């Protein structure tokens, strides 16, 4: 291995995050040298901000949704030589890099194929009560999530090893991709481990988070999808 973490690629889906993006990307680059930002058709100059940094930029020609942006970033990162570990990371600054680094270390141990962050394993104090209720319900309603013993189905911070990324195809373009990833993992032979993380809930990230209405949309999309096999 050469430099630390040079086999790690951090995928950051970006949609109108100009306010916090530059600091998030710069801080991330300080820990992980390989960052790819997928601009999902932002109209606020987010792409130009990425161009000022050393992060790779992939631009969707039109807005496709966060799930699509994640898949695009993973597909791009997968084609970079030497890429072995893939981190998904939110652009709004809610994830902590210490958590990401710890999760990569778990993946490097070779004991697991996927590491998922959970806001509920640790103290979990950073999660507001209503949000906590919505997320716990989502985790409980998901059969694969229960089977894997996951406590948090909708955390954006994950680490995948290369074989998983080679196999995974996110088809849910919108917010249902989180549930899709959980049901994919539940139906696969990958070894999954949940690791406690904490979240920095700022007003900025809360305004963009998942609402109850969003949850209904997600359930609808997933039910139609599973009927089609």
């Amino acid at each position, binding site marked *: 291995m*050469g430099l630390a973490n*040079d*086999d790690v690629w951090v995928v950051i889906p970006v949609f109108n995050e100009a306010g916090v993006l530059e600091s998030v990307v710069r801080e991330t680059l300080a820990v992980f*040298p*390989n960052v790819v930002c*997928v601009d999902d058709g932002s109209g606020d100059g987010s792409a130009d901000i990425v*161009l000022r940094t*050393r992060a*790779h*930029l*992939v*631009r*969707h*020609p*039109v807005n*496709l949704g966060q799930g*699509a942006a994640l*898949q*695009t970033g993973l*597909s*791009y990162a997968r*084609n*970079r*030589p*030497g*890429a072995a570990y893939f981190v998904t990371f939110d652009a709004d600054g809610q994830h902590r890099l210490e958590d990401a680094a710890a999760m990569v270390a778990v993946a490097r141990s070779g004991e697991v194929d996927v590491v998922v962050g959970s806001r509920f394993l640790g103290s979990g104090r950073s999660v507001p009560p209503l949000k906590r209720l919505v997320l716990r319900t989502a985790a409980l309603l998901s059969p694969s999530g229960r089977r894997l013993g996951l406590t948090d189905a909708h955390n954006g911070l994950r680490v995948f090893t290369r074989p998983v990324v080679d196999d995974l195809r996110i*088809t849910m*373009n919108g917010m249902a991709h989180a549930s899709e990833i959980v049901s994919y993992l539940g139906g696969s032979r990958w070894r999954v481990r949940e690791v406690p993380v904490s979240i920095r809930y700022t007003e900025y990230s809360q305004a963009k988070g998942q609402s109850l209405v969003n949850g209904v949309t997600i359930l609808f999309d997933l039910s*139609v*999808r599973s009927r*089609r096999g």
Partner: protein
Amino acid sequence: MLIQFLLILSVMVVLIVVARAGGAAYVQASKRVGLVAFAAANVYAVLRPADVTVVARFLGVNRGTDLVLYSLVVAFMLGMVSMYVRFRVVDRRYTELARAVAIREAESVNSRRGLRQDDTGQP
């Protein structure tokens, strides 16, 4: 009666439009058959409304118009689901296309920016 003539005429127009647009191979054969059967039932119901009431009574509905209304609701919802599923397929293709374009462009842009594409995996 004039109304029967008008209704049957409009069903015929729809069938002709569908048949002429039929070159589009994506409409499944089963759906076409279903549509023709639906149109035929429609014409029959227009010509002999009393028969519809007989069927309705048999099913436990009072009036033939009610039965037609209920069937319409079900048909409408089936149509909506079918459109939704169709939309998902189109959406998936469109996503693949956009992704391929985005990645191809990104590879040239990022190498022009001087980001080394091969700065990992060195021995």
